């Protein structure tokens, strides 16, 4: 457990010291959302209709920006070998790295999403469901993203490749998340969709560390 938190702590510390990388995800999220009203025009009905979907799509794209660095930097510096040789299962190392990734990219997205939804004229009825859905969805994003990141270690221009691998796998999260918020806005019960999002998270937590660890073992050979 000690080792697990040492990895999380180090990765969070590195992210905080490399603010330009960490902030770029959040700034991309904010900027892209701000562009939508400018492009579509100030019709409040239209904006509030597309608010939930827009925020979810942009959140997914923003998170993609950070994924290629998840293992690549460690691989370039030689640290990945040592993490693989550490006296704990590689799957646990992957979970630790995902947790750190979630803390520095997922949490800022969760916090900023409701604030940005005001820009898109989203009614405050959807806030609570949006936050809960994001809390369930963003860890899934880190976990599935880790699989893509592990498979593309050592490839040039890995960032684009990660997005191509990961985005199709994230469509269920997008559909469930956006629909849950839409349901809440329509005054309907969003709990079943939130439970499905939770189920997706559990499945991802079960399969992704294992898949990412296998991918890492392959790429370092």
């Amino acid at each position, binding site marked *: 457990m*000690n*080792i697990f938190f*040492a*990895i999380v702590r*180090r990765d969070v*510390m*590195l992210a905080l*010291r*490399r603010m330009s990388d960490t902030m770029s995800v959040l700034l991309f999220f904010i900027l892209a959302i701000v562009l939508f009203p400018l492009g579509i025009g100030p019709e409040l009905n239209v904006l509030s209709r597309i608010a939930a979907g827009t925020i979810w799509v942009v959140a997914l794209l923003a998170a993609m920006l950070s994924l290629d660095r998840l293992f690549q930097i460690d691989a*370039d*510096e*030689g*640290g990945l*070998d*040592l*993490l*693989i*040789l*550490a*006296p704990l299962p590689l799957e646990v190392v992957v979970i630790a790295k995902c947790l750190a990734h979630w803390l520095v990219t997922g949490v800022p997205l969760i916090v900023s999403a409701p604030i940005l939804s005001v820009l898109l004229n989203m009614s405050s009825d959807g806030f609570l469901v949006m936050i809960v859905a994001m809390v369930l969805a963003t860890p899934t994003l880190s976990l599935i993203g880790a699989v893509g990141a592990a498979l593309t270690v050592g490839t040039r221009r890995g960032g684009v490749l990660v997005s191509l691998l990961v985005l199709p796998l994230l469509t269920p999260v997008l559909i469930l998340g956006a629909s849950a918020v839409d349901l809440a806005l329509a005054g309907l019960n969003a709990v079943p969709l939130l439970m499905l999002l939770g189920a997706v998270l559990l499945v991802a937590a079960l399969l992704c560390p294992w898949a990412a660890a296998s991918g890492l073992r392959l790429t*370092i*050979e």
Partner: protein
Amino acid sequence: MPTAMLSEHHARVAQNNPMVPPVSNSILEARDLALWRGERLLFQKLSFSLGASEALLLSGPNGSGKTSLLRLIAGLIRPTSGVVFWCGAPTNKHERFHNDLNYIGHLDAVKPLLTVAENVEFWSTLRGGDAVQEALNHFCLREIANLPARFLSAGQRRRVGLARLLAAPGKLWLLDEPAVGLDEDSVSALFDAIRKHRAVGGLVVAASHGDLPLENAQKLVLPEIHS
């Protein structure tokens, strides 16, 4: 006689340790290793065995497979055929092999954004060690302990990497070109550490294209590859 062996036409074997223990005392043993990388056969029928306090020096020209053999022993790559045993069990099935292993690759695994002390401390924690201060002292890193590693020279970064050896316990040291980029004092600090490690029964496998001052080391020369 247990010693490093390659098929005769592939390598010549030097053995200058008269006090070779019998095979049953061997802790690290490689049997019949062969490794294909890409389209090339790096080595085949490679066997060696090391007992407590023993050292093996891998040498050979660039590209002869020294690094690959070290990574193979560490378990980072799988041999095409053959097995590596640690304390009688294959390394990939041995539960504690990773606890016993200290691997220094040709990259230093030093994070430029962390300070020297933070770097050593992290790898030490990861391997259950608590001797960070001793390690920093031994490699004369005390004065620069709080300097972010991005300001270090290549030799200093190498020393930070080597400090991992002393910061956490490990019975088997795998060293890939450990002396590259080091000044004289640091080289003697390194071999001082190796001597102490072997004095308490530790094993060392070191790869170098040149000669390393390892006393009583078995020598294994990997041949040049003509494809």
